[in-house]
């Protein structure tokens, strides 16, 4: 095959991969706009399911719970994760071990993490409820923040902070006025990541929630079990929209971080 042939084959392959990734989502989004509750074709456009959604108090309450937990997770995990990344960057003893220990939680199945958290929270008295969910989400999100902020820190010229110090700035002022602004794209990307991790989280939330309080993913799961309505397509489409927008923003910020 010629070089051009290979290139075209590559393009076709990439197209198939993207189709595989996005087709189910696209079908769901389309069905959320189809009037028929039984996925009947021909397609008949309607906002009906979104109207139903606007009247569904339970789903809305779950959505708000999800949003505030995700916001709080983003704020707490970003502060803790950024501080951890900076501390790691300063190179304490055993830095490599500490760094390596950050990654396994990402790979441990959520089912296991959730079980462990449930047992642990029960033992220490946190129990179940939105507070427990928040703590669980923060723990999940911190490694992501550390990863993203660390990548940005590696691009930091150590002379920047020294220059600020030599000009009369204290350690803290130098960090606040020079290092932190430099880290900003990484910190914001970390916050968005943390928000997305929390907002999309199902297993941990399911394990740690008290009865009656639910987050959106858990509520969607419950609704599906009760009987599937295209209303779920509508809310899922909205969730996917938010998540994808956030992660596209992360991708953009992280790339910017490499360029500057």
């Amino acid at each position, binding site marked *: 095959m010629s070089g051009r042939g290979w290139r075209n084959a590559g393009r076709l392959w990439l197209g198939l991969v993207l189709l595989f990734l996005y087709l189910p989502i696209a079908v769901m989004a389309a069905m959320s706009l189809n009037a028929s509750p039984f996925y009947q074709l021909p397609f008949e456009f309607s906002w009906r399911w979104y109207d139903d959604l606007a009247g569904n108090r339970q789903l809305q309450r779950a959505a708000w719970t999800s949003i505030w937990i995700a916001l709080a997770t983003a704020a707490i995990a970003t502060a803790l994760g950024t501080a951890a990344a900076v501390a790691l960057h300063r190179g304490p003893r055993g830095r490599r071990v500490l760094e390596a220990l950050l990654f396994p939680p990402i790979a441990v199945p959520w089912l296991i993490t959730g079980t462990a958290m449930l047992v642990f929270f029960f033992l220490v008295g946190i129990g179940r409820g939105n507070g427990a969910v928040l703590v669980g989400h923060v723990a999940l999100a911190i490694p992501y923040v550390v990863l993203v902020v660390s990548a940005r820190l590696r691009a930091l*010229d150590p002379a920047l902070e*020294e220059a600020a110090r*030599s*000009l009369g*700035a204290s350690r803290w*002022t130098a960090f606040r006025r020079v290092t932190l602004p430099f880290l900003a794209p990484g910190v914001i990307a970390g916050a968005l990541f943390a928000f997305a991790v929390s907002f999309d989280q199902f297993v941990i939330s399911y394990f740690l929630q008290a009865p009656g309080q639910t987050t959106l993913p858990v509520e969607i799961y419950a609704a599906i079990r009760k009987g599937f309505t295209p209303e779920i397509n509508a809310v899922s489409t909205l969730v996917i929209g938010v998540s994808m927008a956030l992660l596209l923003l992360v991708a953009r910020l992280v790339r910017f971080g490499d360029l500057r």
Partner: protein
Amino acid sequence: MSAEIRLEGVSRRFGPGTPAADAVDLVVPEGSFYGLLGPSGSGKTTLLRLVAGFETADAGRILIGGAPAEALPPERRDLGVVFQSYALFPNMSVAENVGFGLRARNLPRRERRARVEEALALVRLEGLGGRRPHALSGGQRQRVALARALAVRPRALLLDEPLSALDRALRAEMQVELRRIQREAGVTTLFVTHDQEEALTLSDRIGLLRDGRLVQEGPPRDVYRRPRTAWAARFLGEATVFEGTPAPGGLTLPDGARIRWSDAAPGAALAAIRPEDVTLLRPSDPVPDGWNALDAELEVSIFSGPTATHRLRRGDLALAALTKGGEGPAAAPGDRLILAWPPERTAPLEG
């Protein structure tokens, strides 16, 4: 207020092996320009960082303006530092960069603005205050870094290879500029470089650093003319080094030839000469009275415009001579020539 920098027995070791600084005694007189010269790994940047307060000495004293500085954090040493990477703050404009130290000193806005203008004028960057660092050329960034360090009117200026990131032509221009700015500001300056020509051009005094030790120091001319060791002679420029046995007023080469010097250096068994001090003669030419003369075989002549370098060989000994580009005896490789030079151009060396 400009101030003297004084190091007394300063040592710093980063683990086993050669120390980065080994009992260094060094004085930069108030208002002068001191060039610290050494190959990479000789510890010159460590010395500068010790003075700046970014490193802590294991032993010894660091005095700035006569007062001990070892215990002061960098922000209280009142020094201006220019980094090799310039380290301009990317999130700030040129004016904010230059004004950073003034803001840290809580100067009122009006005075800050005036001092920023003044510093930018000193480095001839008037009107560029609104630019971002990444919108500047390399030479301009260098000037901003200098203006930022000088705006606080530091007691001394520390320069860490500030010109090494510039291309050749710009570098020559900035050398002149750097010296002008330093004179105008009248600020004590400690300058670190691995480029011997740069150190010789800029400095009032130079110090040669090798493996953390200050091996020689003095005015550039003296150190260049009278290197103390073969290493110093070769590090500061090209040199022919002779090894022989001590003789009255000079030394005897293994092949019996005599090299004379005018210094009082009894017992020296090594000597160096600079290629530009050597006159090349044909065997039939008369040698001036009292001069050293060695005959050698021409290996190659390299013409490079204003000068020509001639490489010669006498047995195992490699010699070099520098002439003006169009001068010197017409000779071809293999011809025998006489290298002649007055005894006061011979530098006796320590072992």
